[in-house]
């Protein structure tokens, strides 16, 4: 478990984060929502230990991360927005090897990690390819593999789909969901559609945490969604409207559950 306890960051007159708390249990998918400039990226960097908060503490599996040595820090991985800027080498497998090489692992150990990481993200068959030949979604999955090769217990995805096309977004989100079965995932986004499968959801606005709870709870709070500046997909708007008309919408919200609910509504109307 990673726990952020009352984190503040920034100067007196310009506070980027104000006493923010959040926890990422292992094996869970946690979504962090918020608009541009809400402080999401700062929070991500503090969680990873890249920047030090002005006050508050980050506790990783019971130990304060400021006291943890280097090898231990590989326990938390982070994937950024632009896949292009995270890939070091021009050949797929060589790039995945970059992290383990830094850890001075033996050659067979590196090979084992490259193989398992690339297989997890579904790029093993493309291992000899040039990075330049990959699609956006594949590049971002390669960036994920590069992090997986460090064997992290937690991974932060900082708007990891923002620059991708719908196909790429789908690939990366699915990879993260699959990973969350074994590692703790913090998924940062302003697109509510990507947070629907989360185990719990947090919302940040101007440096303050304005919500934490379950997804259905969040969806019932239109005021909070508005404040958090999230992009509300049509599916959610429809589900809300249907519920207001007294129709049950099955959870999770999918095309099927929405279709079932609309059919119910239309038969209700015709009676």
């Amino acid at each position, binding site marked *: 478990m990673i726990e952020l306890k009352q984190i503040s960051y920034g100067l007196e007159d310009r506070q980027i984060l104000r006493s923010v708390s959040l926890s990422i249990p292992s094996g869970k998918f946690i979504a962090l929502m918020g608009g541009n400039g809400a402080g999401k990226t700062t929070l991500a960097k503090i969680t*990873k230990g*890249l920047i030090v908060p002005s006050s508050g503490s980050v506790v990783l599996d019971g130990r304060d991360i400021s006291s943890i040595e*280097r090898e231990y820090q*590989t326990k938390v*991985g*982070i994937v*950024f927005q*632009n896949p*292009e*800027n*995270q*890939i*070091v*080498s*021009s*050949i797929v*497998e*060589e790039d995945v*090897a*970059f*992290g*383990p*090489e*830094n*850890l*001075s*692992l*033996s*050659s067979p150990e*590196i*090979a084992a990690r*490259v193989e398992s990481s690339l297989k997890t993200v579904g790029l093993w068959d493309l291992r*000899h390819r*040039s*990075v*330049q030949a990959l699609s956006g979604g594949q590049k971002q999955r390669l*960036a994920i593999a*590069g*992090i997986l090769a*460090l064997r992290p217990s937690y991974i932060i995805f900082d708007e990891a789909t923002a620059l991708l096309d719908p196909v790429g977004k789908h690939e990366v989100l699915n990879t993260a969901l699959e990973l969350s079965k074994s590692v703790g995932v913090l998924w940062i986004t302003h697109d509510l559609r990507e947070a629907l499968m989360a185990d719990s959801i947090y919302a940040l606005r101007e440096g303050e945490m304005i919500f934490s709870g379950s997804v259905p709870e969040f969806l019932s709070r239109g005021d909070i969604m508005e404040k958090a500046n999230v992009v509300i997909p049509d599916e959610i708007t429809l589900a809300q409207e249907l519920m207001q008309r007294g129709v049950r919408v099955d959870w999770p919200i999918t095309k099927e559950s929405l279709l079932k609910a609309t059919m119910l509504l239309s038969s209700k109307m015709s009676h």
Partner: protein
Amino acid sequence: MAFKDVVVVGQYIPSGSILHKARAESKIIMTLILIIAAFLSQSFAVMAVLFTVLAFLMVVSRVPLRFYSRSARAVLILVLFTFVFNALLTGQNVLFRIGPIAFKTEGTITGVFFGLRLFFLIFVSTVLTATTSPVDLADGLNTLLKPLEAIKVPVEEFSLIMTIALRFIPVLADEADRILKAQKARGLNLTGNLFEKVQKLVPIIIPLFVSAFMKAEDLAVAMEVRGYLPGVKRTKYKVAKFAATDLGILAASAIILCACIYLRGYWLVTW
């Protein structure tokens, strides 16, 4: 024409040939020997030996011939220029005339020889880059330069810089292309004298620099996240083994070198 067509980085053409499988180090040594031999020699006999070796390498590489001819086309102008320059200006005896232009005997022969040298240089390095992936090439140079570490040359860092440069040159070329188009849409018209042209490039160069700096910043963080610490010993993913092929290549190079030295006095260029 797009920027990426102008930026010619030795293209790697994987074909799985015996040359592809050989270690970069032996191929670099062989290429160096061949180039030095071609440049030191004044003898057509040596050139004949070298071109025979080249033809052999091209066949063995199993890279399509049209790929080689494409790289030859790129330097054809240069070769022709060298030839004409020599043929017209060197010597007194006229070999033949085309209209008012007199081709001199001595110059024509030297011109042919220089042209052959240039072609040889291009083809031999194309064989190297076509059969060796950029990453392997960087690694190979790294190994060969390793002894320089004794006099405090940062060979390891140099090799990492090469890897990153190879990775980002095509990315930045794409970027430059995009920026050029965007400014063209805003009325940029690259005409005028040299001074005006240079001035007009400012709106392309500044955004390109901004983007490169942003990439560098992102990449530095991404590398830190993946455990990179400058100066700390890194291990290698692929420790290439010194195989019989490499021994063959080195032995052959030595034999070729001896043959060139032996033949250095035959069929000299000068009269």
